């Protein structure tokens, strides 16, 4: 299985000569990498070793441990995984912007949607769910990608749902106002077509704002999640990695129930469903791997 390294913040402080941090031996670092990979599926390549080690040292210091061994013992034996979660947060950087990891949007319009259309009559709905949608960059990117690059879009009723647990993020998403940085990967033509200058930034056009169904959802709330059914495609990127084992299992079960048989789920580049559950079948769509709810699982 191929697992890529997570984004590591390159703005981390550079070690100073008077840095009092306890160095981590190569053996201990290897031990940590094995453990972290098994727990999260994230593997640190040699080019990330310095940053990963710095983050690890930060957590050792933040938790008041004398050194790696004490910290690692605590990490392994803690019940509930609170520090493990802190460590995952420290090792990964979640940054959202338009067209982030856009190869998955490309797979959506080149392979996934045509596959759905081949088996579904024109005029029927196709449901896509962005979860968590944060401040809206992902669902708006999906909408733009479909309008720009799927020639059959006009033949279907495409419903884009977007949910997050954070009500403030949802309010920002509905407002649709973004700074320059959020748009840095957008081709100029798309920026011109779908955005208008607004204060120091840009506002997404009303047509797109009106086409995304933003709702507040807690994935752990089974009763709320039962309302989401017959979804064709779920974008669930960089969420499950932040859950502990028990919560992750529950979330995966719930997402499976939300998908229509044959529907697919897109995870973040450092996530692998195969490490979490055998419910889904990994399927190649062009150059990306998505996870499909089998049509006839059993």
């Amino acid at each position, binding site marked *: 299985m191929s697992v890529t390294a997570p984004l590591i913040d390159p703005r981390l402080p550079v070690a100073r000569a008077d840095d009092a941090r306890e160095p981590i031996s190569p053996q201990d670092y290897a031990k940590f990498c094995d453990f972290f990979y098994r727990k999260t599926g994230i593997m640190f390549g040699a080019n990330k070793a310095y940053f990963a080690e710095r983050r690890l040292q930060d957590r050792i210091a933040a938790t008041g441990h004398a050194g790696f061994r004490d910290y690692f013992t605590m990490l392994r034996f803690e019940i509930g995984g609170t520090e493990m979660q802190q460590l995952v947060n420290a090792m990964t950087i979640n940054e959202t912007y338009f067209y982030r990891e856009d190869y998955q949007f490309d797979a959506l319009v080149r392979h996934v949607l045509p596959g759905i259309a081949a088996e579904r009559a024109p005029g029927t709905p196709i449901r896509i769910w962005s979860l968590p949608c944060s401040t809206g960059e992902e669902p708006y990117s999906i909408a733009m990608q479909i309008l720009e690059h799927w020639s059959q879009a006009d033949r279907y009723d495409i419903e884009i749902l977007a949910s997050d647990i954070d009500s403030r993020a949802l309010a920002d998403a509905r407002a649709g106002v973004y700074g320059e940085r959020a748009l840095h990967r957008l081709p100029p033509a798309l920026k011109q077509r779908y955005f208008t200058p607004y204060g120091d930034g840009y506002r997404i056009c009303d047509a797109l704002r009106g086409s995304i*169904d933003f709702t507040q959802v807690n994935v752990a709330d089974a009763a709320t999640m*039962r309302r989401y059914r017959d979804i064709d495609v779920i974008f669930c990127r960089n969420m499950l990695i932040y859950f502990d084992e028990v919560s992750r299992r529950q979330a995966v079960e719930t997402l499976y129930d939300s998908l229509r048989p044959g529907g697919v789920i897109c995870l973040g580049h450092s996530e692998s469903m195969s490490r979490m559950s055998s419910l889904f079948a990994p399927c190649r769509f062009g150059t990306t791997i998505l996870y499909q709810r089998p049509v006839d699982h059993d």
Partner: protein
Amino acid sequence: MALIEARRAAPQAAAEATPPTLDTLVAQLGSPVASERRAAVRALDAHEDGIPALCDRVAAEVAPSVCEAIMAALVRRASAAVVAALLPLLRDGTPVQRNAALEALAVMPEHVAPHVAALLRDPDSDVRIFTANLLSVLPHPKAAAWLVEALADPHANVCAAAVDGLAEIGDARALPVLAALPARFPDDSFIAFAVQLASQRIGQ
């Protein structure tokens, strides 16, 4: 436009009939249709008294999507009874059931601990190997000590599994026991290699 206008409201739950009774859900666990059994599992997971029925079902269920749902429910409701229902799968379960049981047991350390000594003495060497695998990932303060105990096992593969575990979680107390192991299996080059690697990892 191809994109339909948002409803601006969360999807409403479909009007639900009277919730099925516990007896109905338990009966549904015997349905020949896997999707119906999975629905019953999900409903029993949400039912206050649903877990015993899932414990009773776990060994008999073979459909992967139903097994996964049962395991997710049991993990969430970890208890001595749940562990008692899962342990037989290490011996008698299908590979899918066994691996699922191992993953589930790994997040129930306090309930697994009372069973470890017996598991390490199990007459079935496969069960002892699986136990060593489990201990390697069990977040319990005695896990490394139990793995050191497992090094006394007469079966080379049990010892090898314990060595693998100690490479990750062992400490200096394991080193002398590890050092003595290759002499017990002089013809087994893997044991010598694994011990050398584990000792380096623990080392310093």
